[in-house]
Every structure is written in structure tokens, then in C-alpha cells.
């Protein structure tokens, strides 16, 4: 779970992190990381999912950077990418087309995220 960029809204990332841990998942909380650091951590820790918490409105920019980096490293299909934060519902479709598995906007219940991961990760 990382916060790309410099925006400091931290509640969402912490709440989701705790929920995933409580559901028995192993979680690495990266805090602020740039895209290079996120990808490095993902490789080094051999994670299944990269989660990005974005409240700055810059979700397209950071998603593009992440996807470009993964492509560059030949890791495009290695990780499930999930996004959460203040992201307009109108943008979900485009983000999915860019390769994001799912997007969680305001008002999401953490159980929805846990269910999605449990139902989709093995597939």
C-alpha cells in the first residue's frame, strides 16, 4: 500500500491497510513512495497486489507512470493493481482500461475490497 506523490491524505490508506491485515493478508505499508520505489518494493517483497491511495486528483498521471514502469520491466501481468481515494466514478472505466483491476472511491466499505481480493487473486 503506497501513496504516490506528495499529497498527505492518509486516512484511507491506513483504514484499508488495517482491514486487509485483519482479513489475514500480509501487508507492506510504503507510505509516500515514487513510482520507482513502489515497483522496487513490489519486486523485492514479492507482493501479489500493488495498492495506491490517491486523493490529489492526479490518479491518471500516477497510474500511467506505474503501468509504463511495469511494462518497461516486463512485469505488466505480475501484479494486481488496485486504486483507492477521491477518484470520480467517471474515471473508473479509463483506469481499468489502463490495467487497473479495480478502483475504490469515497464511501467504500472495506469488506468490498477484501471480498474482491479473495475472489479474484487466485484466478
Amino acid at each position: 500500500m503506497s501513496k504516490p506523490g506528495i499529497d498527505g491524505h492518509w486516512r484511507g490508506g491506513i483504514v484499508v491497510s488495517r482491514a486487509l491485515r485483519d482479513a489475514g493478508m500480509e501487508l507492506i505499508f510504503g507510505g509516500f513512495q515514487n513510482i520507482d520505489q513502489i515497483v522496487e518494493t513490489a519486486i523485492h517483497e514479492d507482493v501479489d497486489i500493488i495498492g495506491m491511495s490517491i486523493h490529489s486528483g492526479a490518479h491518471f498521471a500516477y497510474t500511467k507512470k506505474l503501468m509504463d514502469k511495469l511494462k518497461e520491466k516486463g512485469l505488466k501481468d505480475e501484479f494486481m493493481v488496485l486504486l483507492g481515494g477521491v477518484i470520480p466514478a467517471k474515471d473508473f472505466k479509463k483506469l481499468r482500461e489502463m490495467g487497473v483491476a479495480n478502483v475504490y472511491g469515497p464511501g467504500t466499505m472495506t469488506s468490498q475490497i477484501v471480498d474482491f481480493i479473495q475472489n479474484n487473486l487466485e484466478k
Partner: protein
Amino acid sequence: MKKCKKMDDEKIKREKEKWEKKFEDARERDMKFQTDSGIPLKRLYTPLDVKGDYLEKIGFPGQPPYTRGAYPTMYRGRIWTMRLFSGHGTPEETNERWKFLYKHGETGFSAAVDALTFNGIDPTNEDGAAEVGTSGVPLYCIDNLFALTKDIPIDKISVALIVEPFTSAPVCSMYFNMAKKKGYDIKNLMGTTQNDILTMTVGFIPYKNVPPNHLLRLACDFIEWTVPMGNVPKWHPINFTGYNYREGGIDAVQELGFVFASACSHIDNLIGRGWKVDDFVNRLAFHLSAHKDFFEEIAKYRAARRIWAKLMKDRYNAQDPRSMQFRFHVQTAGSSLTAQFPKVNIIRTSIQALEATLGGCQSLHTNSYDEAICLPSEEAALIALRTQQVIADETRIANTVDPMAGSYYVEWLTDEIEERVWDYMEKMEKVGSIDKALSTGWLYKEMRDAFHKRQKRMERGEEISLGVNKYPVPYDEVTDVFRTNDEAMKIEIERIKNLKKRRDNKKLENILDKLRRVCEKEENVMPVVMEATKEGATIGEICDVYREIWGIWEPPLAI
């Protein structure tokens, strides 16, 4: 008189017992009746619940203990300042929005800055480039301040600059230098700097800021230079912003506990510098939330005024009555808004604005209904402004002072909150001054616990959010999404390039060297930061000096 009241009380008590017995089995819904902060509530409040002496505890507005209001006539004298927190894209676009709102009756400005301005990062720095102007207005150098205030009479209307201790000196010195260059005497300038240590530490987490003890010093440097040193004496050099951490999920009692504990740490610091409390305390201001619990919020404002008056009088021995006046801005609760069926947010905001005005705020921001999704569109911002204007001009609630006083429930709740805040402050004081509460991680644990408590309440349906956990509807795709200018980064990089060509880089380098020496010592940073921004220093250049001398702080976050 007293004897008479006692006899009345006994009679009421007897009758109340009879009534309780008679309706013992009357139906009540199966739920816990309590306030948002967990104060258990009785079925009914009566004169028996209002304890203590009226003159001592409630009194009259404009005099201690100020429970009924900071000023004797309150809104009969002047309506609260309608101050919408506003900023996006570039300073030019923000200026357009400000003028639009001004034309429609706004009476104060408030600059919402972007994440780079909060964290002292230039747009030329890769770290934050993608976020230029996305969550507020970029204020990186003096040229941005000229653009922001173009054609705005800053000698007649007050401006709030929402920057925190890490960047309050550079951004506000740019503002003061801009005003001087325009020919204004900054001794007459009116405005506010948020300068709140907790906003960019626990409200938001800081990106490459300096350790809390240095943030506290920077906050106090700014207060000292503007007010007791007399450089900008009409300015409010700090606004203790309970709002921002309340948004994270702490309750009304904690909100007041945080702001008062923080205020005491700043006052102690300034007293340590040799100032007297009456030299500066009357310019300190507060910024509180108006959240979901209608009566609890009103009682909170009333309790806050009484606590502050007691704190200043009893603990700090303030002599000037103005030092005991608690004055505050309110923002309606952004975290209560939903992205699901967002038009309902207009109703939520109206009710919260009513709390603030019935509670006697000095200035008010009302949220736009689209703020759970994006920065406010022009139409949404205008509706938010109109919400305040309906209350001020159509409802007549402003025609008498503190109309909620005398409600058995409100007076009881005011007492209850006051008592709980004193207890919470005592707990905080055991941890130490506010910078210690940060560096030891104590405040992060309080915040974390609040995050999880709120989330659990939402998921269990104990706290209701219509559209989300009751009568749920899909996340709205219909609402228009206001997009910030995606050229902002290019525009701001260009602006800084031009500035760097124009300025005397050698001279500036010497000034920044001087700043290094000042930072190493215990001298006030403001005079040299004023000099630096006048010569065209950018926010990143100044904050890099802070980082170089004091180091970067990693907050002890708790999950």
C-alpha cells in the same frame, strides 16, 4: 431568590419522578441514545440539569466567560464573514474564481493551496510535479501572489492564507512583499495565516518536512514577528485548526483538546521568548468543524469560549479582556459528504452552517456539494455561498445573540463537553508539549484509533451516511466533475524560469546563506525570509535550507 429556586427545583424533581414512573414503559427505539462523541443522553432535560450560577457560567456576550458570544452584539453588529476556501489550477484561475464569488457577495477570501505549496516543493522537482494545482492554488514565488490578488482590494477585504508552519514564512512573506510593492502599509493588512502545526502532521502527513520542534519554532517565529514585534499587527498569525484532524475521525471533545493543548504550547514558547500573554494572545484564532451532531456542535462552540476564557485568566493571568475572547472560523464537515447522491450534500451543509451560526462563529466556509468527488465547480461554490446568505438574510436567526442559550439540553451539554475537554487536556499534558505529542507518536495513535473507530461504526451502520450505508445508491457518475487545468505544471515551471532569469541570483545566494546561519541559531527566521522572497526566492529554495539544517522528519505513523 436562591431559596425560591431551590423550592422550585424540589417541586420539579417530584413531578419529574412521577412523570418518569407514569411513562416508564413508553416506547423508545432500540438504539443507544448518545452524542457523536459518545456522551449518553437522557430522554428529557429539565431545569434540574442546568447547574451553577447564570452570571458566573453563562453571563452576557462580549464579556467573560464569553459563553454567549465573543462580542456584545454579535450578528446584530456584523454578519459573520463568508469566506470560501478556494483555489485550483493556477493563481490566475483562482483569481477569477475569487472575483466571481466576491461579485456574488463573498466577504472574505481563503486560499486553498496545492500539495507542493504545503510541503515546500517547487514544480521543477519531479516528486510533486504531477500535483501542481490539482488540489489547490500553487503559490511558489512572489509572482504567484501578484497574480492571485490582481484587481482585489486587499486593503478592504481580509485574506486567509492556508499554509502551515513549514511554509508559512515563505508564502506569507511573499504576500507581505507583494502588498508592500503595491504600496500598501502592511501594518494595516487584515488576514489570517493558518500556521497550524497539527494540520500538516496529523491532519495530513507531511512530505519531507522538518521535525516537530522546528515546526513549533517556525510557527512561533511567525506569530512573534507579525504581532508582538508589530510588523503586521492586525494579522491573525495562527489559526488552530481542529477542523483538519476532526475530519480524520476524532470527536468534538478531542478536537477542542487538540487545539487548546496546541495553543498552550505556542503561548508557553512565546512567553519563553520574553513576551507577555497580552502582547499577542488576542490575535490567536481558531478554526473548528461543524459536524453531523447538531446540538453537540453548538454546545462545543459555547464550551470552547468558556474554556478559553478560563484558561487565559486562570492559567496565564491575562489582564486584557480581548485575550480571553475565543474567536473562530468554521468549516462544515467535508467528511460527512457523500459521493453517492451528492445533491443531498447541500442539505447536510445547510444544517451544519446553521450549527456554526447558532454557535456564534466569526467566519464560515460552507462546502460545495461536489467536494466528495472533486474540487468545487463554479455552480457548486455559488450554491455553497448562497447557503450562508439564506441563513443570514432570510431566516432571521442573526437577529438576537446566542438564541440556543437557556435550552436545558444545550446548557447541560455545554457543561458536559467542557468537563470532558478539561479531562482530555490533562491527559494530553501528561504526554508533554505539542511537538512531543507528535514526535513520540502519541497523536498518531489517537488519530489511528479514531480512523478505525469511525470506519467500524460506518460498516456496522451505527453511524448513518445516507446513500452509503442506508438507502445505498451507486457511486454517482452523473455529477459533472470539475477538472483542474492540466497545463498548470507547464505554466508554473515557466513562471519560475522567468523569475530566475530576472532576479539577482548572487544576491539571493548570500541571503540564503544568511538564512542558514539564522536557522542554526535561535533567531527569528522572518526578517531574512522577507528579504529572500522579495529578491525572488522560491518556496522550495527556502524549505531546502530548513531541510539542510534541521533534517527531514519521518512521522511515526501507526496502522
